[in-house]
């Protein structure tokens, strides 16, 4: 069974303004009386609670209904109420633990949330950020129908973000692809394979760490010469992109080769023992920027690779994060399309549980914190529209929330945090400037 879209409620952002209830009552009953709203925000001392249908996976309202008037829609997960079958016994209201289905006197029968067909009025009315319509599940379901182009059982570390990126991106890009995975975690977990066995279902190869974009150039050019439409795609780590692989990358971008180059940035050489790369941020512990009596992690800031690629005037450049999958998929679609016209570069941040020192279950949370603190900024570029922010940089969460989540920053001293904050401010202003303020 797949997952479904849902309305989420964050009580810490709610101030009890009732705008959601007014909007719902208006949409569903043509009245501004909140008693008619199918979403109810209930004050509990200073806090607020939500009373609304959760569209449960194993709904008690449905099992309680003797008339088969309630049923869960397998496609969108919404529990539908059928007035022509309802016998007004109200047993459903007894089954529900969330106050999600209640008798409405004006209507004369029970009412419940139907998510307004995927465009909920309550969410649109909430300007406090307390209500959100989460559609990520929609993405997963859609992608779930596409073939996973890697075999099960790749030998990534537990909770590996990079494996997630590999499987998601290749599912979308599809089988008419030649895939380059330069040395690093991606082939290291067995995608190209070991001793005659392979983990990938499309043609895949180990380029050298240095020449990914050049080898893809040769492949793409020859298929074009033959009139065949074949995607030339790289899934490369940040070392093979920003450091030793940069010359060939820069050359291919300058020539406008029709390649989709995806950099999976885990901020270092994680496969070979967590050494520093040009993408490792200031202050980070790595095995070649160790912490000791004198050493306090990396002493230089990270190279801003996506900006460098933007300055190559690529057909498309974007940054993305697995904590924001709709955004990632939108960008992936545009990147694939752009790679049919010219060089397309996607930079996806990939927190590394092993090298960054945090529990594997927290990977997506770490990715989210990186974005919410502006440590990672989500934007996209094309030559016509320039750089555009994909997400507001306003009101970021404090950077401490991100730094404290990671073992690689555990040793940081106040002056180092100060440096990171200053760099962050500078980076944010730079991107704002490029985005036109």
């Amino acid at each position, binding site marked *: 069974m797949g997952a479904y879209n849902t309305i989420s409620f964050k009580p810490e952002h709610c101030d009890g303004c009732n705008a959601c209830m007014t909007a719902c009552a208006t949409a569903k009953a043509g009245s501004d009386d909140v008693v008619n709203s199918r979403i109810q925000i209930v004050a509990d001392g200073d806090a607020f609670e939500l009373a609304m249908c959760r569209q449960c996976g194993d709904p008690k309202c449905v099992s309680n209904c003797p008339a088969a008037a309630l049923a869960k829609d397998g496609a969108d997960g919404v529990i539908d109420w059928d007035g022509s079958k309802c016998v007004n016994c109200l047993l459903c209201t007894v089954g529900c633990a969330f106050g999600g289905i209640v008798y409405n006197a004006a209507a004369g029968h029970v009412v419940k949330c139907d998510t307004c067909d995927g465009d909920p009025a309550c969410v649109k009315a909430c300007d406090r950020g307390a209500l959100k319509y989460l559609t990520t599940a929609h993405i997963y379901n859609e992608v779930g129908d596409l073939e996973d182009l890697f075999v099960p059982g790749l030998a990534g570390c537990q909770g590996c973000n990079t494996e997630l990126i590999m499987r998601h991106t290749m599912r979308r890009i599809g*089988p*008419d*692809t*030649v895939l380059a995975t330069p040395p690093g975690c991606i*082939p290291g977990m067995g995608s*190209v*394979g*070991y*001793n*005659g*066995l*392979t983990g*990938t*279902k*499309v*043609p*895949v*190869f*180990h*380029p*050298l760490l*240095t*020449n990914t974009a*050049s*080898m*893809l*150039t*040769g*492949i*793409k*050019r*020859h*298929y074009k*010469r*033959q009139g065949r439409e*074949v995607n030339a795609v790289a899934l490369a780590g940040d070392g093979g992109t920003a450091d030793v692989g940069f*010359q*060939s990358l*820069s*050359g291919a971008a*300058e*020539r406008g080769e029709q390649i989709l180059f995806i950099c999976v940035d885990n901020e270092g050489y994680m496969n070979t023992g967590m050494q520093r790369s040009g993408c490792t941020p200031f202050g980070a512990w790595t095995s070649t920027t160790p912490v000791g009596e004198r050493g306090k992690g990396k002493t230089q800031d990270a190279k801003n690779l996506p900006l460098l690629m933007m300055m190559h005037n690529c057909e498309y450049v974007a940054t993305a994060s697995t904590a924001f999958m709709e955004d990632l998929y939108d960008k992936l679609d545009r990147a694939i399309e752009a790679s049919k016209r010219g060089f397309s570069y996607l930079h996806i941040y990939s927190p590394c549980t092993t090298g960054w020192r945090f529990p594997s279950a927290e990977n997506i949370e770490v990715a989210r914190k990186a974005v919410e603190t502006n440590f990672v900024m989500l934007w996209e570029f094309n030559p016509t529209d320039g750089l555009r922010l994909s997400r507001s940089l306003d009101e970021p969460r404090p950077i401490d929330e991100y730094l404290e989540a990671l073992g690689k920053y555990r040793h940081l001293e106040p002056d180092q945090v100060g440096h990171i904050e200053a760099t962050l401010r500078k980076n944010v202003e730079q991107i704002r400037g490029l985005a036109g303020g």
Partner: protein
Amino acid sequence: MSAVLKPKPKAIVCDGNEAAAWAVTLARVDMVAVYPITPQSSLVEYLAKFVADGKLNAEIVDVEGEHSVLSVLHGGVLAGARAYTGTCGPGLAFMFEPYLRTPGMRMPMVMSIVTRDTLTPQSVWGGHQDAMSVREVGWIQMYCETVQEVLDTTILAYKVAEHRDVMLPVNVCHDGNYLSYGAARVELPTQEEVDAFLPPPSTNWHAALDPSRPMAIDPLTGGAGGPGPSLFVRYRKGQCAGMQNALAAIEAAHEDWARVVGRRHAPLVESYRMDDAEVALVTLGSMTGAAKDAVDEARERGQRVGLVKVKTYRPFPVRAIVSALDGLKAVGVVDRSVSFGWNCGPLYQDVIGALQFASQRPAAMSFIGGLAGADITTDHFGRAIERVRALAQDGQVGETVWLNEKD
């Protein structure tokens, strides 16, 4: 595509770099990747011009350095292309990483090395040090004596490289300055002749990147456990076998070429005035012309001197060398490069190694000349012949002789 060239063979005057470009055109190469470097530069300029003029119907990729030159061609070959490039000296050094990988992936491409002495001292002139530095990497290497041989060998090389028992890359080495810029009269074969000699390349389904037949190229292989050790040995032995098979393939290709075009070059080694010879010079590349003149002069003096030119250097034609030199009294091997570890020339090392298989082993000594564009004249070769004749008398193998030491 209609024939690019006129149907009748014609003679043109061109240098070695232009001759190589004509060979690439006639061989119907699909992809060339280019980056200029002295003394190869005019070669890639000719290729670019031929593409611009519509003579050469190839995908030309102007890249940002030699590392990418070879890497682009790797991609092209894995997608099924017939591929070509040329380089030398520092460019060859820079492309060493993909160069090292090419034979192991069994990629049948051709790359000219327009030989140049290596840094340092800083030098842009001819010498074999670049090609010699990569002699043990697994590429087939053939050295040319004349501009005509450059043209013919560059086409021949595809037949050797793409031979199913070989499947290895070929370096056609032509000397910087002397052959790259030296112009000569050259017979240009017709497109029909070359087409009759060289069929279109067929996809190598042992190593191809094609979504219609997905496969993984170059997974990690080896290690101490599982199938690793034996699998790795299988690849290595196969590569060595391909190298040895190349000897017969090179001879066959030269024979075919003579049949179709009517021009015959010695495929492995050429013996010059070796009948009844007591001593011989062993040479490589364009120096051979002056050496042959010196041999002629010695013959006129009644000295029983001959010459053996090594055309195919890798794989080393051990049997052919032994057969040519067995029973002589003395041999002088002339190198245009240095083996730093042995304080002699690398070809000399190979020759004395091969002579272990001779029934009557001649004394042999090493001469080094022509470094960094220096000329090895008939006078130099005359002195070398005298030194080798003295060796034949006293059997005393002396120190390596540096021919241009006092120039």
